[in-house]
């Protein structure tokens, strides 16, 4: 029984995963948004399901992927999006605009609290002020904005996004869209016929209808957030249109593109509260798409599944579990718990890998394309290395350290992901899969190794100082682990940095330019070679190596995030301002631990009796 326990635990975790992957089935009388959330549209140059659009928009506006409405209910992202697209009046009552600044709230005459979610109805009267103040802050350099300016700037962007969403299918406030476009198309047809010689000219009323409709559709095109009209089977991503644009090209009722009619029917059914008709038309449209564009449909369906499964959240939970189990294994039942921890860590890695490879397939890119995916990859690399270490030494250290690194990096990724679409298109200079796959991946693997070495070194100091579990043998083993992992970090960082130099030589004409990001990479290489040479020369011993590895954490986080915060390079990230205190806190904690490690060995709990290194 005891031998089976780890596997029973594993089975329970798999069951937990499986349960959270069962799709939600709508109850009787509820809207079935399943087919709707799968519909692909074009936003930001990428074809993605409406579900992704809904989640990312909510992330930008309120920082979460769901909406809490005052009566205590939670609204799924797609439900909110359906209201916004089809029934603006209802959407205006949802509290989706996060305002995290007392001054801004004061401007609206609201109680001055730290954070409040406002509805559009509440903000409606203040739109001119928000526009005016927001415009003023957008002209200020992002680094010099006051908290008030930043808050108002973000609010203005959210409002713009919201207005664009409301105009994405049809102009806001449209009532009977299917009828409207039919009348319009008939009039166009009649108008074209009237141009022929000898035909009677169009009546004035119908001429006016054409004029106002065309202006209306042009306005919709100009303010639409997405392109919802998919081209016919042989079309390219370039050929996606907004509904307005598609309608302007129409010349008869028969030439209205299928997607436009489908969206019009969807909207009408949705507003009428007719869930049967809505479900029917979304399913029919999904069927049409799957025949016309099997590839896009496949990806879109997959992405929806990926969104719903939230693999990174689940692996985060599993990493914590593995970490805690590994820690417990040093106190009680070492063998059984360690085995359980190892199995859970493997499961977490499987889920983590599934998430990472799904993203790669969806994007058609190597794993690291932006800061968000670098965090995902750093954790993944550290866990893979940690598993290797654990297989070699079998003492739970590899599990605990890699579980912790995996958890922390996924938390970081979670926060980095709150700026919108993390599968964004690559700007021209980065558009090179070869270099992304080599330079970026290798250098990020270097970060993984640095952090793993640093965390093993932390385990050495904490175990030694606070417990009596660090025997001379263990101390020696841990030092060997750190040394081995630092060697790996040196290899990855050096090769990655040089590859980066070669890429820079290919695209900017210089191998090295002393840019902060380049310097950050060089700092890691220099630090690693310093550790290795000081060790070879006998200038540092066990404790020196451990302390330098801990300081490696500081240097790696500086190189990973710190240089982006200097504001010298070309990019500034929204998350960075909030992350700054955390980064500083992390660095201070590492330096503090290094200071503690300088205490004479007699004050180390583990060495008090044994004496000496």
């Amino acid at each position: 029984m005891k031998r089976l326990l780890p596997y029973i635990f594993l089975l329970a975790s798999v069951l937990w995963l499986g349960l959270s992957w069962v799709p939600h089935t709508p109850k009787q009388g509820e809207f079935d948004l399943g087919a709707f959330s799968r519909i692909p549209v074009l936003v930001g140059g990428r074809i993605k399901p409406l579900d992704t659009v809904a989640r990312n928009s909510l992330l930008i506006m309120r920082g979460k992927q769901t909406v809490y409405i005052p009566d205590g209910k939670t609204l799924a992202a797609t439900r909110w999006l359906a209201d916004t697209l089809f029934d603006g009046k209802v959407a205006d009552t949802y509290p989706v605009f996060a305002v995290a600044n007392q001054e801004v709230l004061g401007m609206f005459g609201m109680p001055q609290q730290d954070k409040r979610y406002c509805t559009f109805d509440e903000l409606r009267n203040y739109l001119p002020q928000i526009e005016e103040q927001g415009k003023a802050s957008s002209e200020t350099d992002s680094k010099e904005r006051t908290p008030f300016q930043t808050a108002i700037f973000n609010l203005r962007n959210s409002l713009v996004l919201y207005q664009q969403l409301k105009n994405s299918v049809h102009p806001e406030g449209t009532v009977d869209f299917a009828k409207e476009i039919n009348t319009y198309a008939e009039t166009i047809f009649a108008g074209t016929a009237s141009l022929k010689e000898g035909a009677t000219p169009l009546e004035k009323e119908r001429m006016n209808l054409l004029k106002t409709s065309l202006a209306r559709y042009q306005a919709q095109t100009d303010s639409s957030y997405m392109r919802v009209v998919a081209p016919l089977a042989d079309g390219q991503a370039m050929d996606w249109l907004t509904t307005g644009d598609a309608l302007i090209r129409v010349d008869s009722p028969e030439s209205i593109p299928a997607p436009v009619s489908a969206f019009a029917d969807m909207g009408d059914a949705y507003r009428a509260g007719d869930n049967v008709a809505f479900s029917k038309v979304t399913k029919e449209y999904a069927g049409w798409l799957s025949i016309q564009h099997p590839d896009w449909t496949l990806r879109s369906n997959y992405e929806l599944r990926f969104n719903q499964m939230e693999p990174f959240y689940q692996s985060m939970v599993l990493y914590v579990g593995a970490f805690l189990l590994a820690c417990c294994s040093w106190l009680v039942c070492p063998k059984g718990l360690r085995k359980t921890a190892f199995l859970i860590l493997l499961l977490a890695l499987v889920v983590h890998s599934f998430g990472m490879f799904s993203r790669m397939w969806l994007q058609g890119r190597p794993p690291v394309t932006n800061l968000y995916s670098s965090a995902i990859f750093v954790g993944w690399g550290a866990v893979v290395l940690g598993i290797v270490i654990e297989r070699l030494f079998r003492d739970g250290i590899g599990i605990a350290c890699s579980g912790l690194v995996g958890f922390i990096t996924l938390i970081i990724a979670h926060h980095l992901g709150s700026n919108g679409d993390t599968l964004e298109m690559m700007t021209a200079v980065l558009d090179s899969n070869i270099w992304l796959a080599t330079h970026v991946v290798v250098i990020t693997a270097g970060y993984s190794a640095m952090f793993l070495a640093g965390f093993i070194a932390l385990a050495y100091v904490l175990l030694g100082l606070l417990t009596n579990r660090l025997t001379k043998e263990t101390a020696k083993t841990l030092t060997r682990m750190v040394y081995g992992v630092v060697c790996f970090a040196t290899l990855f960082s050096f090769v990655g940095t040089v590859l980066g130099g070669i890429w820079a030589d290919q695209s900017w004409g210089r191998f090295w330019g002393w840019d902060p990001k380049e310097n950050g990479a060089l700092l890691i290489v220099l630090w690693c070679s310093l550790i290795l040479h000081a060790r070879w020369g006998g200038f540092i011993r066990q404790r020196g190596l451990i302390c330098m590895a801990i300081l490696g954490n500081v240097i790696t986080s500086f190189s990973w995030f710190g240089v982006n915060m200097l504001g010298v390079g070309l990019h500034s990230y929204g998350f960075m301002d909030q992350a700054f205190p955390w980064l500083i806190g992390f660095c201070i904690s590492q330096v503090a631990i290094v200071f503690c490690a300088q205490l004479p060995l007699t004050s180390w709990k583990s060495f008090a009796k044994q004496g000496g290194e």
Partner: protein
Amino acid sequence: MQILNRLFGVLSSLRLTVISIAAAFVLVFAGTLAQVHAGLYYVQEQYFQSWMVMWSPASGAYKIPIFPGGHLIGAVLLINLITAHIRRFSWTWSKAGIQLIHFGLIVMLAGGLATDLFSVNSYMRLRKGETKNYSEDAIRMELAVIDETDASIDQVTAIPGEVLSKGGEITHETLPFKIIIRSFFANSKLRNVGQEQGTSLPAASNGIGQRLSITIAEPTTKIDERDVMSAVVEIIPNKGATLGTWLISDAMAERQEFDLESHHWSLQIRPARYYKPYSLTLQTFTHEVYPGTMTPKNFSSKVNIVDPEGKNSRQVEIWMNHPLRHEGDTYYQSGFEPDDSGTVLQVVRNPSYQAPYVSCIIVAIGLIMQFTRHLTGFARRAKPPIVP
């Protein structure tokens, strides 16, 4: 002899290696932080491409060296590497990895030094259909003194910006006059006279300078801005009385003109030019974006290269990550003129551009050899004793 031996011992010691790496670490870290206020170009010059990092008080009265600069540390590391190589070199398999790594590093450091000393970086801006046989420096300026008497050809005498900055008097055998630098501004602002407070005096007695006033500006630290170099110069013919003063500035597109002894002359401050033995003509420039966004997908320029006799011409395309290498120059797609009317190509002349490629391959082989040896040993020792 004993002293030489000891010197050799110190130069090839591991202690010197560790000290140099530590110094390099401090320098890179400090240099990165300094970029926040001082800007990239300044830091690059003062920290990395210098022998000593200098400090001077706010008054700028004196300078004292406070830390070894990039060139010094690089040179010491290079000597350390070479001497250590000589001292410890041996033909054994167990050492081969380490030796390859360090040999590769020697190539890289030497190549880096050569790049710093000999490479030239400039830009070529081409509008559609335009032909140029020169590129322009991004930072360095020159004063072009042009004899325009013959309408079909400009006789140019170029005076480097550094010479202007020293002030004083400039004479040249091709010029029948002296140029006296009355004032010089490394960075400046030009305003219409009387436009704001402090702009009441015209800058010069001739040309557009009669209507403009000039004020000094702090050197810029931003990567996307350039200092506006200006000067007020007086022209005194070798025979005769002064012609008065002219304002010349990088901010002015038009040349400042005067006549002397039936010759028509003009003055202009412009980016320093590098002439090529061939010319480039821009055929087309394309700027693709992702559908429905402003995110650039690709930039590319189609250019014609024509050799001096105008006989051989060929068409090439330059786009992101795909530069053109021609006669020792490398052309990169760097940017574009507003509204896509033209392209900006970066031109690099770097005789040692292959050094990093060679060294990277050598070091990578060395690292792999070394670490596979380590790893196999590591794994063998790490296995716990098997309990039967």
